[in-house]
């Protein structure tokens, strides 16, 4: 009897450690270089996603903006917060690029075209990236210690995932909704190479 209790307790402790501890241990956490507030920029400056995360002339996605984008408004402090002042002193004045950590970078064998999804299919940014635009703080960047991929690919709690299954589900659903021959129907019936390279 006593032995069975020990085994049960040990089993529970082991399972609990695996359940609660492993997901923490597998990811390394690093803070972003600057605590950027999307909310402040959206509310006070009225900035939209594409004002900073835009497309280049050839249609490729520029991703995280470079320093000159920030410096075009923040050459001198616009507000009175300490965060802004320290950002200008550390990065803008010396002309040093902040080393942003990309939450959504896909593995190198994945081909993804932002402009096809945003311009042609009219998807909203939040559909894949979550409600990042209204967040007041940047989350720490969580990186899988084994694969090196960002945790966001797997869908952090309360956020949409960016796994292959998530892409496939969305494509299948839009294909099911669309009439034959339409754009959304095309989105479903494709081979591996349509998203892989």
């Amino acid at each position: 009897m006593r032995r069975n209790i020990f085994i049960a307790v040990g089993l529970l402790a082991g399972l609990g450690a695996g359940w609660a501890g492993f997901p923490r241990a597998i990811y390394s956490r690093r803070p972003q270089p600057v605590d950027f507030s999307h909310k402040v920029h959206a509310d006070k400056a009225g900035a939209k996603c594409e004002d900073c995360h835009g497309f280049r002339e050839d249609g490729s996605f520029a991703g995280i903006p470079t320093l000159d984008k920030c410096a075009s408004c923040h050459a001198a402090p616009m507000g009175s917060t300490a965060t802004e002042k320290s950002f200008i002193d550390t990065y803008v004045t010396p002309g040093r690029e902040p080393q942003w950590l990309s939450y959504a970078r896909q593995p190198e064998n994945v081909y993804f075209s932002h402009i096809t999804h945003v311009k042609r299919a009219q998807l909203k940014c939040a559909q894949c990236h979550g409600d990042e635009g209204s967040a007041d703080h940047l989350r720490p960047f969580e990186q899988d210690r084994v694969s090196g991929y960002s945790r966001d690919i797997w869908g952090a709690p309360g956020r949409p995932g960016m796994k292959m299954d998530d892409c496939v589900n969305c494509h299948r659903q839009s294909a099911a909704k669309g009439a034959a021959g339409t754009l959304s129907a095309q989105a479903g019936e494709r081979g591996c190479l349509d998203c892989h390279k």
Partner: protein
Amino acid sequence: MNKRYGMSIDIDKCTGCGACMVACAVENNVPALPGANDRRGITWMRVYRVDNGEEYPDRRSAFVPMLCQQCGVETPCAHVCPQQAVDVDPATGIVGQMPERCLGCRYCMAACPYHARYFNWWDPQWPAGMEKTLNPDVAPRMRGVVEKCNFCHGRYHRAKERAAAAGEKDIRPGEYIPACVEACPAGAIRFGDLNDPSSEVAAARHEAGSFRLLEKLGTDPKIYYHSTRDWVRQIAFAPKPGGKENLHG
């Protein structure tokens, strides 16, 4: 409408210079490995030399650029793959190989009637500095997987992205062509949509002297060859067993 990309290669124009092979390797991040030889090297595009089997002064040679023939019916490699790592894209007709799914059994290499598939015996490596010349539109493959020509699919992605950016519904004819077609100095290779009656390749396949390799297998390959010489067209049939070898890799 779905496309069916295909190629037309004029053997009478091919000089055997090998520019297509080099362009292909550069475009698709195929490494030049120190231990690679005729059997273990990777050449998605390979120019074979054939001759008519006669002795001097009647001997004649020709060059046959050989690549994945993009079989459309009963695609042998896709048929045998236990991993479903090979598929035929219904939208383009291109036979795609997924290195991520490949387990390296090489059944597809045995099944391929054209020997157009290649196995990675080593992890890819480039001389220091050369990695900067890698094509970002093509992911390098790892040791232990099979790879092959996919009509420079990265270029198709690029063309589609440009069309989406410009607000066009589809890519323009001629906007997407593989690297070998672009590189051929003799203009021996033409490329386009076989479903589009106005395309060059669609017309070329009906020209006199047009043929496909091992057409009798019924796999509907999408690479058409052309020659006005009878003995060259004979290579479309497999050489007789025990016959004189007249194929040189």
